[in-house]
């Protein structure tokens, strides 16, 4: 499955099938050209756009190429809060998704091994949210949390919520929404590693008089690490760029705007393309650094 994208796949180490041939070029070329045209050059054009300056006396939204590095200073000064907030929310959502996803993956991958049909059913339940519109399920939470709803009623009864306060539009509801939406992305890669974990290794830990907690910490957890790493990347990356949960019409408010929110507003509404591009480059750079550290530390030589 694609959810093992970040974990090394075991390849049949049969060197004899690998050969040099012009066929390889024919197979690769169309796709590689497509990726260069629509992935590499767009990133370059973002970089160029991020350095543009307004045409003096030009129309609204008219820019010309320049080397205006001040654009970066401008966006970091103006949108520093939103940028930091994005990474904060994404980190919290990854943590909560891990706290929910790891035990769930352990349950499906290890506890349910003796019940293949139940295991299959639970796996379907984990991927089920993918099949219903992302936006509608986020809106469903908004309506469940609504002022006249049962959750808000309970919260104000136990005194967490003061009169006139609402759950939606707060950092809590945005992180909640992000966590909910990315739990499957966290659970599936961890499940993929735990599912093929050799239980004899865990038994060996017990045979050597390790407590279950020690065995878990020194045997199970290190073996599950590749899954945890890919799950964290698959959650953190889309969560940091997401602006649906943080949107005013969904679970957020103007106080929860994230970097995606301001990129969208600058590009599509304010037509401040250089600012939107500079913010995108900042976001991309941070993600690349994180991915680089992860890949280096986990020693994943084979990326896919």
């Amino acid at each position, binding site marked *: *499955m*694609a959810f093992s*994208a970040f974990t090394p796949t075991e390849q*049949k180490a049969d060197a004899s*099938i690998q*050969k*040099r*041939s012009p*066929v*390889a070029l024919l*197979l*690769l070329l169309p796709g*590689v050209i497509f*990726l260069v045209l629509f*992935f590499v*050059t*767009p990133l370059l*054009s*973002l970089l160029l756009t991020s350095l543009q300056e307004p045409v003096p006396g030009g129309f609204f939204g008219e820019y010309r190429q320049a080397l205006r590095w001040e654009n970066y200073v401008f966006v970091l000064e103006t949108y520093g809060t939103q940028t930091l907030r994005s990474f904060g929310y994404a980190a919290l959502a990854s943590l909560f998704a891990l706290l*929910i996803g790891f*035990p769930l993956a352990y*349950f499906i991958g290890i506890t349910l091994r003796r019940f*293949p*049909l139940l295991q*299959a*059913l*639970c796996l*379907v*339940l984990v991927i*089920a*949210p993918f*099949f*219903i*519109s*992302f936006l*509608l*399920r986020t*809106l*469903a939470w908004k309506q*469940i949390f609504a002022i006249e709803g049962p959750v808000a009623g309970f919260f104000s009864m136990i005194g967490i919520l003061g009169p006139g306060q609402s759950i939606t539009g707060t950092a809590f509801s945005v992180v909640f929404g992000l966590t*909910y939406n990315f739990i499957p992305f966290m659970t599936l890669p961890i499940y993929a590693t735990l599912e093929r974990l050799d239980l004899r290794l865990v038994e060996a830990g017990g045979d050597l008089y390790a407590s*279950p907690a020690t065995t*878990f910490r020194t045997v199970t957890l290190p073996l599950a690490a590749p899954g945890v790493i890919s799950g964290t990347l698959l959650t953190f990356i*889309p969560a940091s*760029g*997401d*602006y*649906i949960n943080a949107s005013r019409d969904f679970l957020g408010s103007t106080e929860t705007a994230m970097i*995606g929110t301001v990129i*969208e507003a600058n*590009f*599509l509404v304010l037509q401040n*393309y250089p600012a939107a591009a500079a913010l*995108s480059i900042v*976001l*991309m750079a941070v*993600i*690349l650094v994180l*991915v680089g550290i992860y890949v280096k530390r986990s020693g994943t030589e084979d990326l*896919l």
Partner: protein
Amino acid sequence: MRGFGKYTIWVYSGMALVFLMIPIVYTIIFSFNDARRTNIIWRGFTLDNWLNVCAAQDVCRAFGNSILIAVVATFIATVLGTMIAIALVRYRFRFRNTTTLLIFLPLTTPEVVLGAGLAAQFLQAGVPKGLGTVIIAHALFCISFVIVTVRARVASLDPALEEAGRDLYGSPQQVFWRITFPLLLPGIIAAALLSFALSFDDFIITNFNRGAEVTFPSFVYTAAARGIPPEANVIASAVFLLAILFVLVSQFTAAARRRRLAKL
């Protein structure tokens, strides 16, 4: 984990699964709501929304656009991705690491960056936004997922089967189309379904490149401010039920087959 007590993990995981189901059940229930424009408060059960889905015309048109985009983008991504996946496993070539990086990076790029990048490029090149630009954008983010999925299948193929074909004097074309391709097909189908689902539900990349065209998610996003018609819930629920039915059937047949094999 075992120190937690034997049943704690059952209870915890059961609660997590229920938690995952809440908004899905909510969306399906509210597809039966007797509401007019805003589907927020429960006003009683009705089948009208299901029977006249296209009463909300814009919902239906958006749905049609989404299907069209998903079909074309899935086709492009599946063909190009499968070719690359085969080349990656089966051939050695120069710039292999660069190619791997080129495939890996789109998976780690936030959607908003992919969307803004393409939009900036289309703007600079003077390409008008529309269905075409959305299809290109979708094919782009699906292609890496296709490669990863199909590649796993190519890597797990038993080379002995193809050798047998060659030993029986099959031409390279015959060996590919009669042996390799049928064996890869389940992986290719899985990749195509994944791409279809990703494309159908995408909002962020679409929003940057759609111009005035409306897809199902972009319809929901715009309508969220003034209220979503229940017909949108009908479409989402119908798509969900179909997909789940498909997955359940394939999962259970696979599990049953494993059980039969285990008994042998």
